[in-house]
């Protein structure tokens, strides 16, 4: 299974001219195909197989208006997609479309607008399910973001299932969102958190993790791709180990779902979380994938409308998943726009995106490591080790914040500096902060070149002050 979602039929828009700008074949095809299902590979002529000489990054750039601007007198070079991605115009149009033509509350009304909004919202859920190959769209719970999704599992599944002495296995490289909720819940339940450190390749030590998993382990919560180290964990293996002892596995797929094919059937994870804003979708929406029987067994997280079945003064009964975990009015437009983002990514094809990023990531790593005094964290790329398309690094004698400030002020290059919500990892590596340049499929070799030139200039600038 290629991991490319089929475009599912959508109802005719109220106003056929709603999608006004950028008459790419993509949007035209969408409007006229209201009753047929399209295979993504054959639809858009703009990106698929037209000209191999023009790279993917160059081809898609026109879809991202935000990238065509100057900051501080220089062309913007956006290298912070691991923090949040940019959105193609189709996603923005989908959001605009929703508010302009069929905004209405979902699952509640019976009038036309409400029915349409509900259909589009549920269609978005189906698209997410299809994108990660979930067996049923009911296994997709919409949340505000991945952080909320992890908290949902922690408070709903965790509080019920973790007993004193139970162990939760994590790695030292986890994002704070996959550490703090477990800390909060372990305080309440008496469970114990165990962390696996890095090995000599600077990736979490999977052998040690295997040893750590014991009958006491109830949950293994790990990232798929690290937002600092760019390493990729062998989730399938980890899941096998965990299931052998009856433990569940939660996968933080924030840095993997946007960049490669993620198939939850293959991974066989119990829970998987991701955020829309890292995958060309809007902020304010993310999702939790949970196996049906697991979600069925979980009590509610937030209480309110939508997640109930019947409400009495002294008690209430609850809805089936996923509604059980979606209290209140959801981010309807945002979910629909996420669906549009998934369509956009699927049209290009996740394997193609991944292939492009592996190459560009290697290029970035190569150029960066060639600079003197630069220390890149994480594993070296090789035949067997494919890094994510990002590099966290430090320059000897130069604080990453100073570096990032100068890059921005003088060169318009946007990178991130700080601890990237991974303080334990930085402490383990013995640094307070690092700089991070992260790529997405709309970046080009020229972006990497500009960055490296700018970085060299920055280093010599600060050296001149010493």
């Amino acid at each position: 299974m290629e991991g490319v979602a089929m475009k599912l039929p959508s109802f005719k828009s109220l106003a056929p001219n709603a999608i006004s700008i950028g008459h790419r074949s993509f949007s035209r095809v969408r409007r006229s195909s209201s009753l047929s299902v399209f295979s993504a590979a054959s639809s858009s002529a703009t990106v698929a197989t037209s000209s191999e000489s023009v790279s993917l990054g160059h081809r898609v750039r026109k879809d991202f208006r935000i990238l065509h601007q100057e900051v501080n007198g220089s062309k913007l070079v956006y290298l912070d997609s691991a923090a949040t991605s940019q959105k193609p115009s189709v996603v923005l149009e989908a959001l605009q479309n929703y508010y302009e033509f069929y905004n209405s509350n979902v699952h509640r009304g019976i009038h036309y607008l409400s029915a349409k909004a509900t259909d589009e919202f549920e269609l978005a859920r189906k698209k997410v399910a299809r994108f990660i190959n979930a067996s049923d769209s009911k296994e997709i719970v919409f949340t505000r973001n991945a952080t909320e999704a992890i908290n949902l599992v922690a408070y709903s599944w965790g509080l019920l299932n973790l007993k004193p002495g139970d162990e939760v296995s994590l790695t030292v490289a986890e994002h704070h969102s996959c550490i703090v909720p477990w800390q909060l819940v372990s305080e309440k339940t008496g469970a114990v958190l165990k962390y696996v450190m890095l090995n000599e390749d600077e990736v979490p030590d999977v052998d040690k993790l295997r040893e750590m998993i014991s009958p006491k382990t109830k949950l293994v919560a790990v990232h798929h791709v690290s937002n600092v180290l760019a390493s990729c964990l062998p989730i399938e293996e980890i899941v096998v180990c965990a299931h052998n002892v009856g433990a569940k596995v939660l996968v933080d797929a924030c840095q993997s779902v946007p960049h490669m094919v993620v198939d939850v059937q293959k991974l066989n994870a119990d829970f998987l979380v991701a955020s829309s804003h890292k995958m060309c979708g809007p902020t304010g929406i993310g999702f939790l994938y949970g196996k049906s029987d697991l979600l069925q067994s979980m009590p509610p997280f937030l209480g309110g409308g939508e997640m109930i079945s019947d409400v009495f003064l002294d008690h209430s009964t609850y809805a089936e998943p996923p509604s059980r975990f979606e209290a209140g009015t959801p981010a309807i437009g945002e979910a629909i726009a996420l669906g549009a983002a998934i369509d956009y990514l699927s049209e290009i094809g996740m394997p193609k995106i991944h292939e492009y990023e592996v190459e560009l990531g290697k290029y970035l790593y190569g150029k960066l490591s060639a600079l003197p005094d630069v220390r890149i964290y994480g594993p070296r790329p090789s035949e067997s080790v494919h890094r994510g398309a990002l590099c966290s690094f430090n320059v000897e004698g130069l604080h990453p914040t100073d570096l990032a400030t100068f890059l921005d002020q003088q060169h318009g290059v946007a990178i991130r500096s700080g601890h990237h919500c991974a303080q334990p990892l930085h402490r383990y590596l013995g640094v307070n902060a690092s700089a991070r340049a992260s790529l997405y499929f709309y970046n080009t070799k020229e972006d990497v070149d500009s960055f490296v030139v700018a970085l060299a200039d920055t280093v010599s600038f600060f050296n001149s002050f010493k």
Partner: protein
Amino acid sequence: MNTSSSFKVFASPPLIFSSRPPKSASQNPRFSYQLPRSCPKSIRCMRDSVNLRSSPNAPSALSFATVEAPLGTKTSDKLRILVSEFRSLTEPIDRVKRLLNYAADLAPLDDTARVSANRVTGCTTQVWLEIKMDEFGRMRFKADSDSEISKGFCSCLIWILDGAKPEEVMGLRSEDLSEMNVGVHGKEQSRVNTWQNVLMSMQKRTMSLVDADVAHRGGERPPHHHKHDLLFKYVNGSYMESSKVHHDYSISLLPLYYDFTI
């Protein structure tokens, strides 16, 4: 290298330009990496010129800034001078360079002071702040950071506030410093907004030193403390003015003008 050692005690006075700095190669990224070769020299020239001027011919002019509690140089005046200096630097890169200059002039902090109790919380960079009250009841500050730009910020803040009375420290608001924001275009409080975090730390710790001082003296409140109570209350982690106070920002005559042409 700064030859005037007295500067080390109280950060250097600001350099004020009467003419705008030229729009040099900083505009064109293609030439930017040639910039370091020319720029640092001119910056060093500026610093050397300062030192030249600080030597025998005009000792009184510059010793003005180095003397303890110079008469008439109120915190508000110093703030005004610094703000106007930064305002004259329209290119953000020039502000970075100016801050780096100030960073170099910051008095070194003892290793013994780099403890977690002295860490300024909420910053992405590490900042240590040492604060004392001297025998005249004035606040004395020393700071350091692992980031040169943060050091520059600290240097400016310390130039304004070192030797100030507690109420002057409390009277400085982060909005007053927004002109000097470098690289952080937003004015909101966030982890990258070093100004706000360091200032808040200075103010919080000033208050505790004042309270400790009061307690030490057996509860007898010095006169300025009453005024202080009326002026401020601690709300949500920051000091807010609770009554309208007219801040006098008029500049008194200070021989701290430097005329440079690059």
